[in-house]
């Protein structure tokens, strides 16, 4: 059955259609072609023709022209629109003409770089030219590094490696820096918030070194659909950038089905779980031979669904290779094998976390099932974009879970279909981030009087500050590094600790084998002792978790349940830096807090029925993070005017508003900060709203929020009073299912009161 036939069957299936709240058809788009631009080296044309490419899509031709004319560009491309051609073609063309030319490719993850290099190899091989492409990352063996530094025409790496492995050692990369002509940055939509601010500063350092070596590279950036690709590209690079978004790739018709699981208890309004419904829908796709990807929001759900679907297609030997799970923590070889299986059609169903949201090449699939709303419009479109053939139709199912946010989306499909995706925001001039990179830059090359650092404000003040701190020495018009350390090593571009645990299967005592890995933060949730750990649909029990050695030992089992751990997050006060305590006014403070995550128990849940079979205890150390925070303690007289539930709903509403508003004014991504409300806070003993940096040590976001608190509260009030919804929606206080009928009104009252306090 093809997608259109399936769509017809479903539309005639009353039982199914009862739960469909909206069936949207997005029309097919015709391909728009353009001839090979004259700027392209003619030797490439037969190479392309060998691959069956006789003309380019309009956006590809546009990109090639602009790039070869010497302009910086950002190309916005939906999934599967031939994005890599946009940069590979002009760069190969330039290298053919001038073999000294060098290019640097940056991908956000190692997995992506490996993938892109393969594609590039193919083109180069077909061209028969002696063009060397190397990946340079943590996996590059020491012996190969020298060759990469000397001879690589195209060096493929990631921002972290550029930051700590290449820039501080630039003198070993003379060839690259002297001849660097192109800097390609793919998937720039992932560089938002603190990660993006870090990258922007890494690029300032890179360009500064290029100046030293006398090269003037162009930027080529690629982004998935976001609201502000040009602005993001310009903030990242500090240059004005040409936007190319005239996508000429064809797209078949797309069905978009909004599905809400049926109510099973009218009185309590309880719906069937999304997982069971997804099991049916993905199962139906699998049975009908429609290649599909299912996105789930957690690794656990991925594994449970994988098992369900595998059970449907097991052959007599128990093999079910047509169904695969995919998530972070699988070994790279396993992941590549799954990706290849998808491209080559050997895998019919893959169940994935958002790990497959990025541009890893798995080809285009027929169908996509979203098990729950991924949280942002941009990532929902990214995931949905995995289904979409160039010619044939495709279908996307959004299956809502019972959370208020999902219920809102499924009740208001237009919110999703017609609202523009989120802005990607970043602030390269965040003083914490800027200063850290400024130190790295000073280490890499002494600043001279009057030097700029990209477009960073007042670099001379930073130089003076570091001189006063005895880190730089100002002499002879230059600022020399005067410390016995290596600044890049103490600065990580990402928040998550990189340290991974190895997962070791000890089922066969003679052959222990590593089956996967997991980050430190997730380990207590999924790999505590006695947990049922699921990997590619197989069940294992965790026998021993060696926290110090970063190893988990698991043994294969076959039990009828899985486990789910409870994570408790608690906040405690470490230090108050600044405080305004005013009984009649609004008390607020800035300080340091400890955020502790602790797993204390787990549930055993039976497969199929999902009933709770019992509990187990977990004994593990807390995972702590020290960070900076600001908070408002609500005045007693204000709190006295509400009952407890009202107060709670109102505070929840404000917290949600702050989550929406703060990133806009702090110029960060929503994941960079946490906003919590506590009716009886251990920090103040009173109802309190808290904003803290979601980074160990903090990156100055709470400080900034503290300095603009009136503005933040005003904007919250502006949004909530201006929102047209009657009782709350995800764009203001949150869906009514969360904040209750009065939540919106209470939030407005509290906000007005906070703002009216004279001393704020």
């Amino acid at each position, binding site marked *: 059955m093809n997608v259109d036939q399936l769509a017809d069957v479903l539309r005639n299936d009353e039982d199914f259609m009862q739960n469909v709240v909206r069936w949207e058809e997005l029309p097919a788009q015709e391909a728009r072609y353009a001839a090979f631009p004259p700027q392209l080296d003619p030797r490439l044309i037969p190479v392309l023709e060998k691959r069956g490419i006789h003309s380019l899509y309009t956006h590809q031709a546009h990109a090639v022209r602009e790039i070869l004319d010497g302009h910086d560009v950002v190309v916005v491309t939906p999934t599967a629109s031939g994005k890599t051609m946009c940069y590979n073609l002009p760069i190969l063309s330039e290298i053919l003409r001038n073999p000294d030319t060098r290019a640097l490719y940056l991908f956000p993850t190692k997995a992506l770089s490996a993938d892109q290099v393969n594609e590039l190899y193919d083109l180069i091989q077909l061209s028969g030219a002696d063009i060397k492409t190397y990946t340079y990352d943590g996996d590059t063996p020491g012996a190969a590094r020298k060759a990469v530094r000397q001879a690589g025409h195209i060096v493929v790496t990631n921002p972290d490696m550029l930051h700590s492995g290449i820039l501080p*050692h630039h*003198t*070993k990369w003379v060839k690259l820096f002297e001849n660097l002509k192109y800097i390609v940055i793919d998937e720039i939509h992932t560089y938002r918030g603190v990660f993006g601010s870090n990258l922007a500063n890494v690029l300032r350092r890179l360009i500064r070194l290029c100046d030293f070596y006398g090269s003037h590279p162009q930027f080529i950036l690629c982004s998935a659909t976001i609201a502000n690709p040009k602005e993001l590209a310009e903030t990242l690079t500090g240059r004005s950038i040409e936007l190319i978004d005239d996508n000429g790739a064809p797209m078949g018709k797309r069905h978009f089905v909004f599905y809400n699981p049926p109510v099973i208890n009218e009185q309590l309004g309880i719906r069937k779980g999304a997982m069971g419904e997804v099991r049916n829908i993905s199962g139906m796709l699998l049975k009908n031979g429609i290649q599909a990807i299912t996105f789930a929001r957690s690794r656990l759900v991925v594994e449970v669904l994988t098992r369900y679907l595998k059970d449907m297609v097991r052959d007599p030997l128990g093999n079910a290779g047509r169904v695969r799970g995919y998530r972070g923590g699988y070994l790279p070889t396993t992941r590549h094998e799954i990706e290849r299986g998808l491209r080559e059609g050997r895998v019919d169903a893959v169940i994935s976390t958002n790990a497959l949201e990025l541009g890893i090449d798995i080809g285009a699939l027929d169908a996509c099932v979203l098990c729950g709303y991924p949280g942002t419009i941009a990532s929902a479109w990214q995931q949905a974009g995995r289904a979409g053939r160039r010619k044939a139709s495709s279908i996307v199912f959004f299956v809502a879970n019972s959370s208020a946010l999902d219920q809102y989306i499924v009740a208001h499909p237009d919110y999703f279909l017609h609202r523009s995706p989120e802005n990607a925001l970043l602030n390269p001039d965040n003083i914490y981030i800027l200063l850290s990179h400024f130190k790295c830059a000073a280490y890499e*090359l002494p600043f001279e009087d009057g030097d700029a650092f990209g477009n960073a404000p007042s670099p001379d003040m930073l130089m003076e500050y570091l001189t006063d701190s005895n880190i730089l*020495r100002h002499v*002879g018009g230059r600022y020399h*590094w005067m410390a*016995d*350390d*290596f600044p890049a090593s103490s600065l990580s571009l990402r928040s998550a600790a990189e340290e991974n645990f190895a997962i070791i299967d000890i089922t066969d005592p003679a052959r222990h084998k590593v089956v996967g890995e997991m980050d430190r933060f997730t380990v207590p949730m999924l790999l505590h002792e006695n947990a049922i750990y699921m990997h590619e649909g197989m069940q294992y029990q965790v026998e021993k978790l060696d926290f110090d050695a970063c190893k988990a030992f698991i043994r294969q089992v076959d039990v009828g349940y899985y486990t789910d751990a409870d994570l408790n997050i608690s906040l405690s006060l470490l230090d108050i830096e600044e405080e305004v305590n005013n009984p009649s006014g609004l008390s607020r403070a800035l300080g340091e807090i400890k955020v502790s995550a602790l797993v204390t128990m787990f549930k055993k849940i039976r497969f199929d029925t999902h009933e709770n079979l019992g509990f187990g205890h977990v004994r593990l150390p807390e995972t702590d993070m020290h960070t900076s925070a600001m908070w408002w303690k609500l005045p007693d007289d204000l709190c006295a005017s509400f009952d407890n539930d009202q107060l709670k709903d109102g505070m929840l509403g404000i917290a949600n508003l702050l989550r929406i508003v703060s990133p806009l004014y702090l110029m960060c991504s929503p994941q960079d900060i946490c906003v919590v409300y506590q009716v009886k806070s251990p920090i103040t003993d009173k109802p309190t709203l808290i904003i803290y940096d979601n980074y160990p040590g903090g990156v100055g976001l709470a400080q900034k929020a503290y300095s603009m608190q009136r503005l933040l509260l005003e904007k919250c009030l502006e949004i909530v009073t201006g929102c047209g919804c009657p009782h709350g929606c995800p764009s203001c206080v949150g869906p009514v299912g969360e904040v209750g009928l009065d939540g919106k009104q209470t939030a407005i009252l509290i906000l007005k009161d906070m703002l009216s306090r004279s001393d704020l």
Partner: protein
Amino acid sequence: MHEYPEIDALARRPLMLMQHEDLPDPLNPRHILFLDTETTGLGGGAGTVAFEIGVGRITSQGFAVTQYVMRDYPEERFMLEKVRQQILDSEVLCTFNGRTFDIPLLRTRFLMNRINADCLDLPHIDLLPISRRIYKLRLSQCRLSRIESEVLGISRPNDLPGSEAPERFFRFLKTGEFSLLEEVLAHNEQDVASMLLLLSHLCAQYTRPEQISFQEDLFSMGAALEKEHHTRESRRVYRLVPSGRLHSPSQLRLAASHRRDGQAERAKEIYLDMIARKEGGVEPYIAMAKYYEHKEGNPALALEMTRKALILLAEPSLLDSSTVQDTRNALQYRYDRLQKRLTKKGI
């Protein structure tokens, strides 16, 4: 000026035995430049600076060490130019760990100051890997200070640890107190001087291995020579290893070396000698079993050797590890195979 007893040993021939980089021929020891830097850190990135560079060379008056110090960053270029001139006046560089540290660091400094760094491509004798090959077995780690005390008999009672040099320099920059650098300079001077001592000592040892008193050093030298394909010299050194812990490994390597060159008879003599002296465990038996079977075509004797080896292994041993188990299995297999072959022949 420093004077050295073994300086006459310094010659091209032993130098070519201990490392594989080609050296000028003839080699005038006075054209070797001994070089050591003191730096602002061990980071090895573009922001690490050599604030002091000591160079030494042999002169008619003795060993002369010249030290260049930058009194502040703007003097770096001048200092580097001076050092570059010294290097241009030389034919060979000698350092301790210079291949991974000093020379790449200087290359970076030259580049940062836009000075041509080609002079650094001179033939380079790095004493660290050479010493490691000879002394690692005995000393387990090969820092220069340890080699000084254990090999050269030098003691440095009031030496400033090299790791404190950056701090001293930064304090000097802030205060202008030159005395802060005096201990750094003394440390560096001794480092450079020790390099000449060490190089001469190594040359003397390579020239007259019979005077080496430590069996570990002898065995290591034999292995190092063998690795660099100096077969004749390596055999000579292996033969010098006195009876003791390393005698049988030396004999085994010596025999293997002969066998590789097709000198099966020479190897046989060694193995039989080892068996007679009950030395080397099962290995000489296994080697002889192979020899009898494949060279002399005498499976009966081969079987006998295998049987003896198995008996030897049957004796209880503390080292009954998995490798022993593997050896036993392999021997048993050999034994069964030979026996089968013999019975077949008998029929």
